[in-house]
Each structure stands twice: as structure tokens, then as C-alpha cells.
């Protein structure tokens, strides 16, 4: 009897100690170290923590890229129902006149072809050859494609916003997903855009493009709060503008630090591009302008000189510096 009681007490003790175990668990983190090849991936500081992590990291980056391509394709040509053969028509010079005059434009019209719209054949089957029943009817009724002759017909992109969410969930270090998603979200719901971009910054603290778009979103919030009249901004709008100034300044600082030194001379580098250059220029100019407008003119001048020294190939900054002398 005594032995059983002892046993029960010991089991209860184990249970009580286990209930207190989170105190220990929260303090144990053997993975908290900063060095090592698994942690030194460019722009993706936490992506690969092991061989398996590296392989899976490559996979999720590829999946996020595929989603991005899908959104781009949608924005440029509907949902991809236009036949690939007709997206870039290859008409021989000799046949050019005939092709233009031919009302069938290279395919047969002996059957009703509802997939042909504005002279653009699509891969959607015509009703006589469509086995998909109501799905086909639905497709033909909705006609979810754009005329490819209109290069980019921007909408508010509401229908593709979930893709940006999905691609950043798949790969939290997919900076382009945050940047483009935040930009599209800005016009619909700037506060949501701000949250989305702040999540991106938490996961990619060195991605200067996200800071840049964050600054743009903050300007949009200021515009919505205080209107376009910069002379009479209320307190809330002014706070947004000051936040935007800081965001642009941070973007410029990070961008300048990441810009390869050799870029000015040869404009060729695997990790840099003209569009990244444009982003750094934009961030630097906006930081200076907002500092001058809402902060101190002296600080703005110092910033301008500093940015112009670091970005000697930006003609706008150079002109602004010349303006200082005059």
C-alpha cells in the first residue's frame, strides 16, 4: 500500500515537473548562432540551415518564381488562354500582306470559333469540339484574356493579390513578391499593404526595395489622410510623411551599401541590375526631398551631398547638388 502511494506521488511529481517544462524549453536554443555556410546565403539569411534546408530552399524559391511568372503573365495576357503560337506571330515577309488580308488569320473558320476574339485565336475549344460541358461554356462566356496587342492593361490587380500572399508564404525571402504585392495592394488598401511590407522587412531586413515601397505606401496613406495639399497637412498625415522619409532614407542607405563598387564603371554584375539602380536613386531622391520638406534643410543638404557622392551616376542628384551651389 505504501509502495503504491509512493509510486503515485512520484508519477504526480513527474507530471508537475513536466507542466513546468516550458520554462526550460523557452531558454534552450542550440541553433542560435550566426556563422556558417548554411547561414550565409546572399539576401536570404535564414533560408538554408542544412543540406535538406538548402535543397528545399531552392525548391520553394523556384515555386515562388513560378507564381510570380503566373501573375506577370496574367497581367500581360489574361490567364494564358491565348495560344502560344499566336502570342508572337511569325509571319514571313512574303506572306505578310496575305496574312493581314486573310480574315481567317491562319486558322480555319469552317466552324464557329468563339475562342477567336479581336482576331486573336485562343486555346479554348469551340462548342462543337469541347468535351468539358458547362466549364467550356463558362470559359467562352467569361473570356478571361486580354488582347495581346494591348501590351499592359493594368487593373487594380485584386484577383492576383492572393498569389503574392501565397508566394511570400512559400518563400518568405522572395523579396520581389513583397515589393510587387505591396505596390499593388497600395492602391486598394494601404494599411494592409503596410502590414504586408512590414512582414517582408521582418523577414528580409536588408531588402532595400521593400523599404522603398513602404515609403511609397506611407506617402499614399498621408495623401489619403491629409489630401494633396502639402501646406496644410494634419498631424496624422505629417506623421506618415516623417515615417516615409525614414523609410526612404533606410532604403537609400541599404541600397548604397549593397550596390557593387564596380557597377558605375562596367554596369555588369550578377547581383545587380538597372532596375535596382533606379530603386536606389528613387529612394535617395525621395529621402532628400522629404527631409527638406518636413525636416531640416541642413540635414537635407548633407544627405544630398552624401548620396550624390555615393551615387555619382545619378544625374538628378547631381543637378540637385549643382542647385545647392547656385
Amino acid at each position: 500500500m505504501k509502495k503504491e502511494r509512493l509510486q503515485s506521488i512520484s508519477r504526480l511529481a513527474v507530471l508537475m515537473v513536466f507542466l513546468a517544462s516550458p520554462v526550460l524549453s523557452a531558454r534552450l536554443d542550440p541553433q542560435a548562432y550566426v556563422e556558417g555556410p548554411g547561414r550565409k546565403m546572399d539576401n536570404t539569411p535564414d533560408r538554408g540551415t542544412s543540406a535538406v534546408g538548402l535543397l528545399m530552399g531552392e525548391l520553394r524559391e523556384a515555386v515562388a518564381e513560378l507564381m510570380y511568372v503566373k501573375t506577370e503573365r496574367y497581367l500581360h495576357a489574361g490567364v494564358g488562354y491565348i495560344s502560344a503560337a499566336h502570342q508572337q506571330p511569325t509571319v514571313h515577309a512574303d506572306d505578310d500582306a496575305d496574312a493581314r488580308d486573310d480574315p481567317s488569320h491562319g486558322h480555319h473558320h469552317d466552324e464557329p470559333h468563339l475562342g477567336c476574339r479581336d482576331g486573336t485565336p485562343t486555346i479554348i475549344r469551340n462548342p462543337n469540339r469541347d468535351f468539358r460541358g458547362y466549364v467550356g461554356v463558362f470559359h467562352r462566356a467569361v473570356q478571361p484574356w486580354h488582347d495581346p496587342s494591348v501590351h499592359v492593361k493594368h487593373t487594380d490587380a485584386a484577383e492576383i493579390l492572393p498569389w503574392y500572399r501565397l508566394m511570400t508564404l512559400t518563400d518568405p525571402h522572395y523579396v520581389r513578391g513583397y515589393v510587387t504585392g505591396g505596390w499593388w495592394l497600395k492602391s486598394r488598401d494601404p494599411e494592409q499593404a503596410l502590414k504586408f511590407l512590414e512582414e517582408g522587412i521582418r523577414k528580409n531586413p536588408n531588402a532595400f526595395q521593400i523599404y522603398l515601397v513602404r515609403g511609397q505606401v506611407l506617402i499614399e496613406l498621408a495623401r489619403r489622410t491629409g489630401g494633396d495639399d502639402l501646406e496644410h497637412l494634419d498631424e496624422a498625415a505629417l506623421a506618415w510623411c516623417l515615417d516615409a522619409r525614414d523609410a526612404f532614407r533606410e532604403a537609400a542607405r541599404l541600397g548604397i551599401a549593397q550596390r557593387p563598387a564596380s557597377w558605375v564603371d562596367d554596369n555588369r554584375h550578377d547581383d545587380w541590375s538597372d532596375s535596382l539602380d533606379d530603386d536606389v536613386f528613387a529612394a535617395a531622391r525621395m529621402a532628400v526631398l522629404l527631409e527638406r520638406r518636413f525636416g531640416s534643410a541642413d540635414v537635407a543638404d548633407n544627405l544630398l551631398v552624401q548620396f550624390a557622392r555615393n551615387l555619382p551616376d545619378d544625374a538628378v542628384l547631381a543637378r540637385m547638388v549643382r542647385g545647392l551651389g547656385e
Partner: protein
Amino acid sequence: MSEANRVHGPRAMILIARAVMLDLVRGRSLYGFLALMVCFMVLALGVGLLGMEDAATSLFLLNLGMTLAHLAAHVMALALAVRQLPAELEHRTIHTLLARPLRRSWVLLGKWAACTAAGFLLFTVLLGMACAAVPGVTLAPPEVGEVLLTTALSVGVLTSLGILLSLSLPKGLAFTLSVLILLLGAPSTQLVQHAAAGGRLYNAVLWCTHYLPDFSKWNLITRFTDGAPVLGAADLAGLVLYAALFMSAALVAGVCVFERKAI
């Protein structure tokens, strides 16, 4: 029954463990994992023959081999653990076993110890094979020691969890659930913590998520292939205590369930 015929606890555990080991050797899964590691060795040696011998490739291969060994040891030990008691019950051999003057707790502990030892031994063998396949880089003896110790703890926690779950769930489900906790426990708790961040219940959620064992804490392989230093005595003791808490809780719960189970 005379005292001479009485089977004492430790001796009973050894006898039961021996039977589990025999079960393992007679099964095919052990040889499957060995064959898998041989495939890895061929791959790693092939990479060496192709001339890809830089330090980064060697470290990547070593990490891959050690991770493979780590995962194989866990899966094999778990597969062994979840079938022990259900198989005894299913084949009714548990009656023969319990006809002896044995307490049920010793049966359970014997099986757990054997499964853990089997997993640890397999890991040691596979680790040796992985290191042999990537001759360019080696781990220092203290690092190997810490990896072996933490893997033994990790396997111990997993097998205790597997045995506990196998007493109340079907074998397949217990295995799947344990593997999910092994592989997705840490990411899913992080996801829950992230989702609850900023909410009123954040601290409560954070506390509760710590009741799910985080097996990544006992996996030091990437830490060492990344060149980070060995853990200090306090951290190591913390990991041992952390494992002991989960093992003891799972085993006590398992013993309670097993003792009340109608056979």
C-alpha cells in the same frame, strides 16, 4: 514462486530488450536503411571522383549524410517502437510474457530502452559510413560526442512518444503522428506562435506550444557542419534535462495507460 525464480526488474528489461533486438535483426527495415546509406556513399564518392572536392561541397555532403543517418535512425527506432506492444497484444504473446512475475512497467521500459538503443546504434553505424564517404572534412571528437549524445536523447524521446501513442492509437496512426511531430513539430509551433503574436492569448499560446517536443533542439548536425563551437556544459545539461522531462512524462503516461489496459 521462490526468490530464485523471480525475475528482477533490470534483468527482465535486459531479456525484453534482447527479444526486441532479435526482432530488429530478423526484420528487413534495418538492411533497407543500411542499403540507403550505401547509396549515399556511392553518390558522395562519385562526386569526389568527378572532382567536386571544394570545402563547401564536402560540408554539404557531410551534412546530407549525417542528416540522412539522423533521420534513418529516428524512423527505424520509431517503427520498431510503435509495433512492440500492439504486436504483443495482437499475437497474444503478451499473456505468456505477463504470466511471468513481471510488472508491466518493466515490460514497457525494456521495450523502450531496446528501441532507443537500436536507433542509437544504427545512427552510430550510419554516421561512421557518412563520415567515411566524405573524407575531406571531419568533425572534432567533442562535436561527434555531442551529436551522439543529443541523437540518443532525441531517439529516446521519439520512441517514448511512439510507445505512448501506440497504446491508444492504431500502429500506423501512431507512427504517422510521431513522424509529423518529429519533422513538423518545430515549424508548426513557430507558425502557431507567429499567428498568435500580438494577440491577448499570446503568452498562453506560447506556453502551450512548448509542450510539443522540439526535436530540432537535439539536432546539432548543422551547427557543427556550419563550424559553430560545441555547446557549453550548461546548454548540454539543459538539453539532457529537456529530453529527460519529455521521456519521463511520456513513459509515466505510457505505464499508466498500459497498467490500466485490459488484456
